[in-house]
């Protein structure tokens, strides 16, 4: 028996519903149907009245959650795809994110965003929106990359008094398995050294952590390079201390992300490292993002749009040979 990434999300929600009467779930097709990705399968039956189908109204879904949170509940909202949260953008960044600052009343909502690309999904079912939400003060944005993080960070997200945008990667849903959920107790806001190394640091998050590890494996085989991979886990706030400690060891930085190239997590990581750890760098810090086009639908284009172990290796070789 093993646990997949999406199982972990399901199990976390089950635990939350069981342990905390303030928790309820709201989203399209999440009730009897169990959600487009089955992340809420069986929960409606187990917790009657607490797993509710919403109309196709992303703006109202978040407004509703904010209202419920004001009244002491802990709603978890499932967007059917992260891409559709564009409709809820206003309620997320202007209603939820500003609420504590404006009124002193925190709104503990968790917004689950099924994120990232999968082959054949195209421009509107593949987006990674963490950079958009991280830009706004008042939001916490998490991007679990492991089965255990998918579980524990969802529990932590709901426990947090602030609005959390929980970016879960669709590619990992069934592909990523673990023998069991076995967390290391790292809280939201702390990064993890996924793979230790000494020649260069790759800072990644979400599905790209696994691509980074693959690239690191290859370079190890190829030339004995030891690449350290840092999994950010939380992209807002960034755990810059862990990143700096790693760069202090390796002297080289590649910031890696699946999102669009302008701005975003990789820019923030590089800018923060350069501000606080400039002297630690032995080579110019590099970034690797997707290409600057919408996410293409055809799998062949898609595979060339996002970073791959191959393109990560190329970037790392250049970084190492500087």
């Amino acid at each position, binding site marked *: 028996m093993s646990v997949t990434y999406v199982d972990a999300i399901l199990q976390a929600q089950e635990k939350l519903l069981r342990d905390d009467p303030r928790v*309820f779930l709201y989203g399209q097709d999440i009730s009897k149907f169990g959600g487009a990705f089955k992340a809420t399968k069986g929960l409606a039956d187990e917790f009657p009245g607490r797993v509710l189908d919403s109309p196709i109204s992303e*703006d*109202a879904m978040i*407004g509703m959650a904010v*209202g419920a949170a004001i009244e*002491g*509940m802990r709603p978890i909202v499932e967007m059917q795809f992260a891409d559709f949260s564009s409709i809820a953008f206003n309620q997320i960044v202007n209603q939820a*994110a500003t609420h504590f600052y*404006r009124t002193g009343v925190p709104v503990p909502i968790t917004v689950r965003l099924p994120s990232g690309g999968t082959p054949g999904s195209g421009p509107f079912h593949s987006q990674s929106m963490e950079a958009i939400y991280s830009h706004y003060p008042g939001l916490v944005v998490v991007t679990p990359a492991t089965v255990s993080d998918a579980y524990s960070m969802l529990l932590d997200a709901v426990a947090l008094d602030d609005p959390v945008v929980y970016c879960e990667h669709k590619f990992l849903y069934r592909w990523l398995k673990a023998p069991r959920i076995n967390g290391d107790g790292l809280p939201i806001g702390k990064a993890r050294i996924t793979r230790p190394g000494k020649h260069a640091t790759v800072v990644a998050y979400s599905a790209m952590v696994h691509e980074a590890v693959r690239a690191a494996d290859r370079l190890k085989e190829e030339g004995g390079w030891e690449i350290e991979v840092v999994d950010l886990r939380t992209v807002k*706030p960034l755990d810059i201390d862990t990143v700096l400690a790693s760069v202090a060891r390796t002297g080289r930085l590649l910031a890696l992300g699946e999102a669009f190239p302008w701005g975003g997590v990789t820019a923030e990581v590089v800018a923060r490292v350069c501000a606080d750890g400039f002297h630690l760098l032995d080579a110019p810090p590099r970034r690797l993002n997707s290409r600057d086009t919408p996410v293409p639908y055809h799998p062949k284009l898609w595979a060339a749009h996002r970073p791959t172990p191959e393109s990560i290796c190329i970037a790392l070789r250049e970084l190492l040979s500087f």
Partner: protein
Amino acid sequence: MPDAEEAQRTRVGLDRDYVRDVFRAMLKARLLENKLSSLYKAGKIVGGVYLGKGQEAVSASLGASLVKGRDIFAPLIRDQAGRTAFGEPLIDCTRTYLGSVLGPMKGRDGNIHRGRPQEGMPAMISHLGAAVSVVGGMLMARRMKGEIAGTVGATCVGDGATSTGAFHEGVNMIAVEQLPMVIVVSNNQFAYSTPTERQFACEDLLDRARGYGLGGHAVDGTDVLACAEVVGKAVRMARDGAGPQMVVANLLRLSGHGEHDDASYVPGELRGSHLGRDCLENGIAQLIADGFSTAKEIEDWKAAFTDEVQAAVAQAQQEPTPDPWHEDWRACSSEPATGEDSP
């Protein structure tokens, strides 16, 4: 849906205290807003000033029909009268306009945005229509907690706000959930400078109620007794389990969009029409005629409220303004998000 005539007939049944509460809130709000307008013109106000002149009857009727501590009221920009009727202290208002750090928003947000969400009065964001679903969510929470019985949630919007996607999604959601909610649409004929014919094409905004599956109520917003009755009835229906209700009040905005605006785009003809009647002036006559009050009593109220307003202004003016050095500059309440240092 009672038509005007039927409303007239049943009006005798209006509760005396309720009508007097509605009227007093209207009067107090008008006096307060007149003061705010003067202060604005004297350059004493921090930020913009948006007034409810001409819309007090419907707003106060809503506020007075709700019970603070039990109900939820999300006022919009022209709801000083509703706020007052609901029980918001004057000092919350003057502190916010005059920039006192002791106000409910501590100088972080302003004026019309003030609220006390944990006392059932959400603090609006500017984006029109966005409060509908928030009030819906508050009611959903009450229902899940088993505390919904006898509770009503209410919010107000203008004719223009009905064109927003947020309004639509929110109203539809509360209809699906059959929440005990009242939506008051004050059709004041303009959204800023934009007349209704550039805003919607239906014959009557009330037709929207049926499209959403809401109870629908039309009311003459210039007639305080009609407002007290119709709004009171809508609130009662929602409270008694008849599902969400929509009230459309027809009236005219008697001020500019904000105090910076002279509203010269409002045709004189419209000003002179029935819609342009001042619900407060009209209300004084109605209250006296129908024996709810006397000219003398109203004069006494006016004097007392004028003093109250003056006192609230004076107090707020003496209070400290926010100090950036004492501000803690935190957008999150919890630790993780403050790990980041801002420059």
